[in-house]
């Protein structure tokens, strides 16, 4: 009987002890040696050559407490850093709140909320979230600017209305059949969100739905000429604020006692879209997030990280990693101009450096 009481008291105690960044992140005082992590992430930087690994920020959080935090000038804890394609997964998180509010279903056609998609009536929101709209697309930045759809969308003929640029692309395949990474798909989602909401509610929605409840105050989200969020690329957040989205995901959509995202939405984000081609070292697509789960017959993308690891990833090395079993959230910002950075190597070193005990 006494033992039962003790267990009950301990469980209640640990539930109360759940840590949240309110108002700011608590710092864990457990000492650990981060030298192997830092020497990998922050080597001497050559400003002229712009080569090698060039981290701007590294933030490691375990179960709601900061274990390690480091910045490279001029980035600081207060810098709202460009997240590039991490924006896509945050957009999906905003959409998750909208789904929880009953604004749409995954199987709804995109055209219901964004009329220019009438040209592609069979494309569902789920297909866009899997980057499988089937629309012809060439992703890739500086190495193929002539043929790049993403460069055309962001900087030339698409820049004033990015979703319309995407919707005007020809269909290359049947929707939902094959993963083809496309920033255009993400911007069609950003435009569809507008169609789901009351007129005038759109510009404030990411704040009202997600940023404000999480206590995020650094967010800047740039828009195209029509006012549609550049959902593919142009969200800025401080590292500590991006980690709040990580903690929300790590805790399966719950923020304190409020289920902000439906747990089924997080499950969708974390479900592998299997109609994809494995690329060595590259995470696999889920629902607008990237998974370390292997595709059938292929190796685990990041072999030294648990297979339940998932991430939001962006150009030039931006990353938000979530390791649910380890209760870890890791933010990395960077200005990597070559391919020398390895997700696997960083995760391996962080896992090896974790102080024992705790969560």
């Amino acid at each position, binding site marked *: 009987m006494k033992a039962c009481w003790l267990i009950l008291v301990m469980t209640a105690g640990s539930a109360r002890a759940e840590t949240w960044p309110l108002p700011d992140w608590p710092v864990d005082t457990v000492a650990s040696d981060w030298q192997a992590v830092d020497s990998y992430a922050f080597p001497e930087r050559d400003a002229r050559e712009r080569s090698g690994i060039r981290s701007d920020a590294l933030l490691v959080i375990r179960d709601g407490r900061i274990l390690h935090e480091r910045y490279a000038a001029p980035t600081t804890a207060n810098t*709202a850093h460009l997240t590039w394609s991490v924006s896509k997964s945050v957009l999906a998180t905003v959409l998750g709140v909208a789904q929880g509010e009953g604004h749409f279903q995954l199987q709804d056609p995109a055209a219901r909320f964004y009329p220019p998609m009438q040209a592609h009536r069979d494309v569902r929101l789920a297909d866009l979230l899997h980057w499988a709209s089937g629309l012809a697309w060439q992703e890739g930045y500086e190495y193929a*600017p002539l043929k790049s759809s993403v460069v055309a969308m*962001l900087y030339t003929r698409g820049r004033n209305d990015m979703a319309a640029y995407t919707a005007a692309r020809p269909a290359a395949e049947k929707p939902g059949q094959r993963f083809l990474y496309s920033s255009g798909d993400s911007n069609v989602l950003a435009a569809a969100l507008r169609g789901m909401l009351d007129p005038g509610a759109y510009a404030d929605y990411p*704040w009202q739905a997600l940023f404000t409840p999480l206590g995020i105050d650094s967010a*800047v*989200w*740039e*828009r195209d*000429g029509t006012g549609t969020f550049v959902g593919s690329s142009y969200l*800025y957040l401080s590292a500590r604020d991006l980690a709040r989205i990580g903690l929300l995901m790590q805790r399966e959509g719950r923020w304190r006692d409020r289920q902000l995202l439906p747990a089924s939405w997080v499950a969708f984000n974390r479900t592998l879209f299997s109609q994809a081609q494995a690329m060595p070292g590259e995470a696999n697509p889920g629902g607008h997030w990237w998974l370390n789960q292997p595709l059938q017959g292929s190796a685990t993308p990041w072999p030294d990280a648990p297979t339940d690891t998932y991430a939001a990833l962006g150009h030039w090395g931006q990353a938000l990693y979530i390791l649910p079993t380890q209760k870890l959230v890791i933010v990395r910002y960077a200005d990597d101009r070559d391919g020398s950075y390895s997700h696997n190597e960083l995760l391996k070193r962080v896992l090896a450096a974790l102080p024992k005990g705790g969560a």
Partner: protein
Amino acid sequence: MKRLLLLMIVALLGWAWFERQALADFPGILSAYSAKAYCSCRFVMGFDEAYCQGYVKQWLPLSALEEDSQQRLISATGLGQRHQAVWQSTRAGCRLLP
């Protein structure tokens, strides 16, 4: 030999016609990208001019990169084209002008 050269010219012209849209767009990329990226580097991320100049640098050089700090307006010129980006608001950051 002459025939081969002629064939190559025809092929090149054919390719240029096929890619005419992408080729016409190409000269605008550098200045548009630079204006937008520099505007956000300065007024959203809040970095200094020297850092931001290095940040936006591409393999092709710009002929001008001007900042109007009062209007928070950036003008970039390169490959004979000029583009401008302007800061909109705290939440909306920068945007390329049409």
